């Protein structure tokens, strides 16, 4: 299956060359979880805070489906002003 991955903020270095806001198609075995996707991408777990899949927050053990769009974020904050 193929999923579309976007990385943000400090995680952008793990997909070098991908334009900001654009996703990269990644081929995965069916049944791959979000945590396993992190391994595929080579991102240390401690650098990741959370992922939104098709706009919905998902836990690490969520199984991905063909065509899923995943945005992955490090800890970020701001906006209180």
């Amino acid at each position: 299956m193929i999923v579309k991955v976007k990385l943000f903020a400090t995680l952008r270095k793990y997909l070098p060359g991908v334009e900001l806001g654009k996703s990269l198609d990644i081929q995965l075995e069916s049944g791959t979880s979000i945590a396993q996707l992190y391994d595929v991408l080579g991102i240390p777990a401690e650098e990741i805070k959370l992922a939104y899949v098709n706009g919905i927050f998902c836990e690490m053990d969520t199984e991905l489906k063909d065509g899923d769009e995943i945005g992955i974020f490090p800890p970020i904050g701001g906006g209180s002003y």
Partner: protein
Amino acid sequence: MWVLRINMSDQSYKLEELPEKYKLLYGRALTSQMVYDEVPPLCHALGLNNKLVFSAGVVTGTAAPTSARVSVGGKSPLTGGIKEANAGTAWGPDLAKMRVRALVVEGLPEKKDVYWGAKVKWDDEAGKPDVEFFDATEHIGKDVYEVYPQIFEKFGEKVSIASMGTAGELGYGNSGVVFNDMARRPSRYAGRGGLGAVMASKRLKFIILDAKGAPGIDMVDKSLFDEGRKKLIDAIRSHPISQPKGGLNSYGTAVLINILNEAGGLPTRNFSAGRFEGAAKTSGEAIFETNKERMGKEIYNHACSPGCIIQCSNTYYNEDQTEATSCIEYESTWALGANLGVDNLDDIATMVQLCNAYGLDTIETGGTLGVAMEGGLLEFGDSKGAIQMIHEMGKGTAVGRTLGGGTEVTGKIYGVKRVPAVKGQGMPAYEPRAVKGIGITYATTTMGADHTAGYTIAPEILGVSGKLDPLSPEGKAALSRAFQATTAFIDSCGHCLFIAFPILDIATGFEGMIQECNGVLGTNWNADDIVAYGAETLKVERKFNEAAGIGKEADRIPEFMKIEPLPPHNQIFDIPDEALDSVFEDL
């Protein structure tokens, strides 16, 4: 400790001993209490009887980290209710160091065409502050970026300055009170709710503080303060959001654009969608990467005010390496970007700079232009047209004055049904249909639609202090209530609200903040006490609003959000009125 009253009816001042009942009140807690005690709720916000109250926080002026906040309070010409807006600036510590707990501007001169400056300086011999007035009329009608250097030149680089721009002079509901940042830019705004117009209505153009020789902050228990301070510093320095080269220091607050967009909660084209196709181009990452390309190196953010160790304020540079503006906050890049269908960062930077130069609030300006675009004044995406409209606002043309009235007024004038405002104040950068808790805060806060008042985004979107489902209404009234009460305390203690990220996750940091306050005040507060302190402030604000005719019927989200489903999640705002009412009923 004093209350310094500046009476603009005759340009006189009075220094009063701080009344016993205000002993533990600082910042927002004090501005709101004094507005409640002294301002008739039904007075005209730009009339004789309104007052403008300034107060710094409990630890402002001490060595506590990230604590140079000052609150400004009064009756708001935008909402008709009570207002507190705060900013990070050296002006706050300077006021506190002179031991002025509250600076109150009252009265109104008969002569309308003369503006005044008030210089407050420490008189070493007398051991108290004194005030001199000067004619400031020559500085009216000007860009504040032109005016500030002249005032610094005249009074010395060590002073700090509070002022307002033409938006205030023109009496707009959209006008802030501005303070200088560390580089002496007039860029730190207590922006929301039209307090700039209140200051201008009193014909007071500047309040200049010169704290040289002032005694500083008195502390009851210095070692307790130091212990707390150390804990808080450790928490800030070790949390990935607030640490050096962490999220805020690298990307600024605008780092939130992409996560809100992914979550489907980034209000787009006047709140008609929750995702903007050009969002990434307006984000903190884009600011960082554009700067890197233009300046040939990575540029990290700076402190807006003395003693800030988070340092989240960015500078955005033009192609020719000159400064375009400082700073582009998340709310600003959203208001003038996604909300207008604009993805050109250079144009957004121009708009932010113009808002600062004219004394406009970027959130209210973006909200207003979004409604005006929907009403047909301009096409969505027309950033050049938007820039022109901001000029018209600043210069006070007929259309500019219309827009200066704010989001709600503009909606009425252009016959628009989709008007994202509560209690007359335009909504900030989070969509209530996609993030239910923040919608409850917008609806119920005494301030009018305001995100800072109860920032439930932390758990709902960012996963700070747990992770909640933003689309679910479950438990969100209680969540908003708890955040609103805690925030009212933080707005009173003098710390920048961004310490919330580390202290919500790191218990010792939270403890440290309370110990700092106990050290200064000699109190024995615990976590429950500070929530109760904040809740008291909310109750006072609420009482003022009720007496001003703003009761629970005003604690509602605009109708269109209850009937128009918002893509991509196709949700409406489904929080029942009883849940909204419970926020204050159960306080």
